[in-house]
C-alpha cells in the first residue's frame, strides 16, 4: 500500500508541475505588448489546402492575429451562422448561402466580395478502367456508385445537380448516387475507390493523385461558380476582419489561390 501511495503522490506532483509550467508559458506569451486578436473564419471545404497556406502566410506577417478556420459545406456553415455561431468572416462556395444570410440581415452587406471562381469536374479513381469522356457517361453500367455532394447544403452537389438536370439524366442517376456532406468527402470516396465516379471542383481533383479528371463541365451547364466572402454583422473584430478580407483580395493571396487552381475574381 505504501508503494501505491508513493506512486500516486509522484503522479499528482508531476501533474501539478506540468500545469504550473503550462500556465507560466502562457503568462510569458501574454506579456507581449501587441493586442492579440482572434478571428474565426468559416470557409467552404474546397478551400482547405489553399486557405491553410494563406493563413500561414498571414500569420507570419501578423503575429498578433490568430486566424482559426472552420471548414465545412457552405450550407452547414450557413446553418451554424444562422444559429448564432461566433464567426467573423464567411467564405462560401456559392452565392446562395451568402444571399440567404443577407436576407436574414446577418451580413455586413458592404463587405460582400466575389473572391474566387472554380470549375466543376467529373472524376474517377486513377486506376479506373471506365471509359468515360463527359458527364453523360455516368449513366454507364460501369459506374455503379456516383458520389455527389448533398445538393441542398453542398454547393458542389448543387452545381452537379444543375449539370445533370441540363443533360436530362438526373432521375436516371438517382439510384446510384450517394450523397456526401461536403466536397472533400466526395473526393475521398472516389480516391478510395468506394465510389466509381464523383463530381468535385477542379481544385479538389488537383489535390489527390488517386483520382483523375475525365470531364470538365462546360460553361453554361451550371450557375457560374463564385466564392463570395463577407464579414458577419455580429463580428466583434470588424477591423481585423476587414484587414484579413483585404489580404484575401491582395496579391500574396492571389498567388496561393492560383497555385491551387482557383480563378481570382477580386480586382
Amino acid at each position: 500500500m505504501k508503494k501505491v501511495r508513493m506512486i500516486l503522490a509522484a503522479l499528482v506532483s508531476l501533474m501539478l508541475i506540468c500545469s504550473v509550467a503550462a500556465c507560466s508559458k502562457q503568462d510569458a506569451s501574454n506579456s507581449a505588448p501587441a493586442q492579440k486578436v482572434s478571428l474565426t473564419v468559416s470557409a467552404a471545404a474546397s478551400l482547405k489546402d489553399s486557405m491553410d497556406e494563406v493563413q500561414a502566410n498571414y500569420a507570419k506577417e501578423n503575429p498578433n492575429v490568430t486566424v482559426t478556420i472552420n471548414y465545412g459545406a457552405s450550407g452547414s456553415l450557413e446553418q451554424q451562422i444562422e444559429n448564432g455561431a461566433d464567426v467573423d468572416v464567411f467564405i462560401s462556395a456559392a452565392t446562395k448561402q451568402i444571399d440567404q444570410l443577407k436576407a436574414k440581415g446577418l451580413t455586413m452587406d458592404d463587405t460582400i466580395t466575389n473572391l474566387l471562381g472554380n470549375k466543376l469536374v467529373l472524376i474517377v479513381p486513377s486506376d479506373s478502367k471506365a471509359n468515360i469522356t463527359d458527364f453523360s457517361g455516368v449513366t454507364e453500367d460501369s459506374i455503379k456508385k456516383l458520389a455527389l455532394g448533398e445538393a441542398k447544403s453542398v454547393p458542389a452537389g448543387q452545381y452537379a445537380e444543375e449539370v445533370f438536370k441540363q443533360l436530362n439524366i438526373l432521375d436516371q442517376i438517382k439510384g446510384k448516387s450517394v450523397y456526401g456532406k461536403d466536397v472533400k468527402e466526395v473526393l475521398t470516396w472516389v480516391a478510395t475507390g468506394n465510389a466509381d465516379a464523383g463530381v468535385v471542383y477542379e481544385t479538389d481533383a488537383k489535390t489527390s493523385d488517386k483520382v483523375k479528371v475525365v470531364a470538365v463541365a462546360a460553361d453554361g451547364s451550371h450557375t457560374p461558380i463564385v466564392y463570395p466572402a463577407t464579414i458577419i454583422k455580429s463580428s466583434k473584430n470588424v477591423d481585423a476582419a476587414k484587414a484579413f478580407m483585404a489580404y484575401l483580395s491582395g496579391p500574396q493571396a492571389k498567388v496561393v489561390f492560383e497555385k491551387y487552381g482557383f480563378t481570382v475574381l477580386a480586382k
Partner: protein
Amino acid sequence: MDLDPLWISLKTAITATLATFFLGLITAWLVAGYRGKFKGFIDGVLTLPMVLPPTVVGFFLLLLLGKNGPFGEILYLLGTAIIFSWPATVIAATVVAFPLMYKTARGAFEQIDINTINAARTLGASEWKVFWRVAVPLAWPGIIAGTILAFARALGEFGATLMVAGNIPGKTQTIPVAIFFAVENGEMEQAMTWVFMVFLISLVLMSVMNYWVDAQRKQAPAGK
C-alpha cells in the same frame, strides 16, 4: 413526407437486433462459463464498440469492408461492394449494439444459481441443452432487456453508419442520417418530425422494458 427513413431504420434495427441476439447470447454464455486468465481482456475487447466513439468503429469497418480492405477486396472480385449498401447499415448497427446484448445477457447468465446448471449436467443434459433449455429460460428477463437495449441502440446508430453506408435516400438513409442532413439543409421541421418519432419509439421501448422486467422479476426469481 417521405417515410423511407422510417422503413429503412426499422428494417435495419430489426435485422441487426436478430443478428445481435444470437451472437450476443452465445458469446455471453461462452464468456460466462470461461474461467481462464484472459476473461477480463476478452470481455474488454467485446465491450469496446460500446465505449469507443462511433467514428472509431466506422473507421475500422471502413478499413475492413472498404475496397482496399480484406473483405472489400473479395467482394470487389465478386462484383459487389458492401460500402454504401443497405447491408452496411446492418453491420454498423450490429457492431455497436452487440456489447449491450452481450453484457446484459452475460450478467443475466451469471445470476443463475450454478447449482441448477450443474444439476442439469449431472442429470445428463448436453451442453447445448443446458444452455438452451435451462440457462436461457432462467436468464430470460435479462436477455429480453438486453435485446430491447440492442434494438434501441441499433435504431439510433449514426456515426459508423454514415461512414460505411453513406447517405443514399431510399437505401441507406436511416432516421438519424435523415435528421443530420435535414438540419444541414436547414429543413428544421423535417428534422423535428424525425426527432420526435425516434424519441417516441425509444421512450416507449425503454419504459415497456422496465415495466416488463420488473413484472418478471416479481414473478420468478432466477434459478432459486
